[in-house]
């Protein structure tokens, strides 16, 4: 619940609502239970709904609908309820809905969750209409900011892409109450199909295995771009996830990459960083979870982070050794933009290429911090130009003025220019020599 709490302090303006107590529904599977609930409603809830599902033996489908949008979408909601129940193979039931302006993909997900909690609809899915998939994600794409979205809070999904993070993370792990894992999984699956996240890479953070297997079963068929694996301590865990992803992707004929990113959150994980980073071809990035890591060490997590400097540099080194990206933890004080900027700049200086964020307002600050300075870009452009000139003239040695340039310096400059181009800091040209600094 750590993440969820931070979200209600930051992203949500007035979100004093806790997840509905469906524990009872989940825990009691006795025959006495006649109704099954999913979702949330109430004056402070937006974009969600509460479904109460009562299976029956006869007399068809009875719908009771209360909705603040009933004058506009009442007919549409009723038709959708009929359609979803039919897809789930339910012929007789009473279903009561208290809707708070939920979008269609949420309505389907909540009904499906309630039906499954009743032990029905097994092996069936009520999938919402899908938006076109974005282009496949490149292994080395920009991953400066990845925005965490609690997997049980649909209201945060809808406009997340508008804030232009490099990635969004639909989080099934820490942000979701244990009693809500089943429903969140369905909601996240529907979001992957129905929500346009813009240019953001679509990531899902699964739970630790074995619970994570159930998450994979639900979400991998919807082709997320990347699966974040939490609390990784050894390479075996990555291999286990990879194997399952591969198996489901093959079964569902997914012909686009689904990358993996490991989060190391313990002393042991840090010690095994290189093995984890090199465990799989699908591994593209590695990150650190500082809350759990500092807890594991029994030290206090501070704003300047001296206690985790070893772990962070070790992780950066291992990631680079395995030729994958190192990504930093989140900065949890969403009100402190200056502190965030300082943290992100120091992360970049250590060799991280991005970090997590908990609030959309953190995104521009992070992008700014991870952007190379104009002087850096200018210098790199000169080096690249000198390198290309030397190539053309067949010279083995690159020199700038009277100064010899070592090959690693050339490599770094090439990489920096490429990144600057991806960040939109350069006017695009066919070759790097025609590029110039975009100062507009």
């Amino acid at each position, binding site marked *: 619940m750590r993440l969820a709490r931070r979200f209600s302090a*930051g*992203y949500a*303006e007035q979100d004093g609502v806790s997840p509905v107590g469906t524990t009872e529904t989940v825990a009691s599977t006795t025959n006495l239970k006649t109704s099954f609930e999913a979702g949330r409603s109430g004056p402070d809830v*937006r*974009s969600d709904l509460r479904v109460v599902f009562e299976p029956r033996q006869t007399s068809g489908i009875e719908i009771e609908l209360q909705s*603040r*949008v009933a*004058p*506009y*979408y*009442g*007919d*549409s909601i009723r038709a*959708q309820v009929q359609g979803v129940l039919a897809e789930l193979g339910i012929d007789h039931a009473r279903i009561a809905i208290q809707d*708070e*302006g*939920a*979008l*269609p993909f949420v309505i389907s997900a909540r009904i499906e969750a309630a039906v499954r909690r009743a032990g029905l609809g097994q092996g069936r899915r009520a999938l919402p209409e899908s938006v076109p998939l974005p282009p496949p994600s490149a292994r080395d794409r920009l991953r400066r900011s990845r925005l965490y979205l609690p997997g049980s809070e649909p209201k945060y999904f*809808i*406009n997340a892409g*508008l*804030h232009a993070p490099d990635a969004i993370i639909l989080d099934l792990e820490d942000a979701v109450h244990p009693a809500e894992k089943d429903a969140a999984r369905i909601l996240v699956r529907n979001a992957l199909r129905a929500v*346009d996240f813009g240019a953001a890479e679509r990531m899902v953070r699964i739970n630790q295995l074995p619970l994570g297997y159930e998450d994979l079963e639900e979400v991998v068929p919807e082709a997320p771009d990347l699966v974040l694996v939490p609390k990784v301590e050894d390479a075996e865990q990555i291999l286990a996830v990879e194997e399952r992803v591969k198996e489901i992707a093959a079964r569902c004929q997914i012909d686009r990459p689904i990358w993996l990113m490991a989060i190391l959150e313990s002393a042991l994980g840090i010690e095994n960083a290189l093995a984890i980073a090199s465990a799989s071809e699908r591994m593209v990035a590695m990150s650190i979870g500082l809350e759990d890591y500092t807890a594991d060490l029994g030290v206090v997590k501070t704003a300047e982070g001296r206690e985790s400097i070893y772990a962070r540099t070790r992780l950066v080194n291992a990631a680079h050794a395995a030729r994958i990206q190192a990504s930093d933890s989140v900065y949890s004080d969403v009100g402190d933009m200056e502190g965030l900027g300082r943290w992100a700049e120091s992360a970049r200086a250590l060799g991280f290429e991005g970090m997590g964020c908990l*609030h*959309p*307002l953190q995104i521009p600050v992070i992008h700014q911090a991870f952007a190379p300075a104009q002087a850096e870009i200018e210098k790199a452009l000169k080096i690249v130009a000198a390198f290309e000139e030397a190539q053309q003239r067949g010279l083995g040695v690159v020199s700038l003025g009277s100064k010899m340039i070592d090959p690693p310096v050339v490599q770094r400059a090439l990489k920096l220019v490429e990144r600057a181009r991806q960040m939109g800091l350069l006017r695009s040209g066919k070759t790097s020599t025609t590029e110039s600094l975009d100062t507009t």
Partner: protein
Amino acid sequence: MTNGFELVTNAAGRVVPAEVNGRKQVAFPGVGKHQPQGSKAAPPIHSAGDYPANGDKRVPDLEIALRKCGLRDGMTISNHHHLRDGDAVALMALETAARMGIRDLMWFPSASFPAQAGVIELMEAGVVHHIEGSMNGPLGDYCSQGKMRGMGVLRSHGGRWQAIQDGEVHIDIAVIAAPTADAFGNATGSLGKSACGSLGFALADSMYADHVIVVTDNLVPFPCVPWQIQGNNVDYVVEVPSIGDPAKIVSGTTQITRSPDRLKIAEHVARFIRDVGIMRDGFSFQAGAGGIALAFVDYLRCMMKEAGVKARFVRGGSTRYLVELLREGLADYILDGQTFDLAGVESMARDPRHIATSPFTSYNYNGKGFFNQLVDVVVLGATEVDTHFNANVVTHSDGRLLHGIGGWQNCLFAGCTILAVPSFRDRIPVIVDEVTTLTGPGEMIDVVATERGIAINPLRQDLLDRVKGSPLPIRRIEDIQREVERICGGKPQRPRLGQNPVAVVKWVDGTVLDTVWQAVF
């Protein structure tokens, strides 16, 4: 004919009643087409001989004042909303009338607030016949359900002045809540424990009503300066322990929204104003006190600083954000119609560059011009806007009364009108095929800025040209509508509206722009 109402279709294609509360109406003939005739109304001549020779107009209580003003059945009583939801005077006046056994009053507030929900009982009891003025919350529902005996009349702040000066509404007794006054009747809103800033909404009433009563909880020895209401127009002064709840009169501090989606809208608006070149030295703007508007001011302030640009004047609804602009030298003047927070009240009381204005100077269309014509850009809200940029601010999409017009219509006369709205609220798209209630003709609305993009009215080719090359997400309004309808699961059903008109929306010149139909709950 529907239930005795003769209906006509106006130039905007809206069906409106030909007669409202016994008075013949002019159907909206198009923007700028109505030519008023005749002279302004005027109150009867009073002479100093009828008032105390020592200028002390105090009477012991409101009942005596109302009796002395000759209150009787069927009269019109006016009140004002400068104390907003903290106001106690309006209900005090009407309840006093009730105790006096008076019936069938027309209540003519400049706006009503939830604090005045008690007027429903007075309507049920027959004391109040109907309300002409903005209604929302419980009063709005009461009117929307068709329970009011007369028809509601919604006017802009400027339109209210116009209706009074043109004689369309005759005020028998104006009861003005005054945070500070002297015994002669001079009054100001800037001082006192119930200080609220400007008393501009009460100014027309003080000039045109037959009788004027000032009610205050801070009586000072003559002279009360600077007076916003002139004692020369006042009949009686009543001292009471409290005119309202200061905590609800102004907010301690107004807050910028923290919703990232709304901030995105505000940022779009500020960048638009900069990129099309409206933000230049000597420009002017107006923005209200809503979360998006405040955030917009803050973004614009940073851009003005960055560009070294200064505004000649800004129009409020003042808040601490406008006050900061003034103090930082980013604006020469605040011309303030309504003061929303303590910083605004204090600034108006102390800073001569922070000036109280009235609907006459700022908003009245039937005058020789008005200030808002001189404003370069205004940022407003709306509940709905259609693909021809026609907008609704008075009703929910299901037809229920939501809020008053305020200065909204009057602001449309600025150089550039921007509606800053989310593209949908709770699954309900804001961009629609046809607005439920027309409040502003599309030809007056230039830009609709949402979190998903900015749409420019095709009538403003100049703006379309000036925005070329800007990285802003400029889109056709139909494109944004289509995207939102996809997200929301199709076009919304048309809400069912009743057959009976319960209120009319006036245009700024007094013609009838649209009808609010009885809502089907």
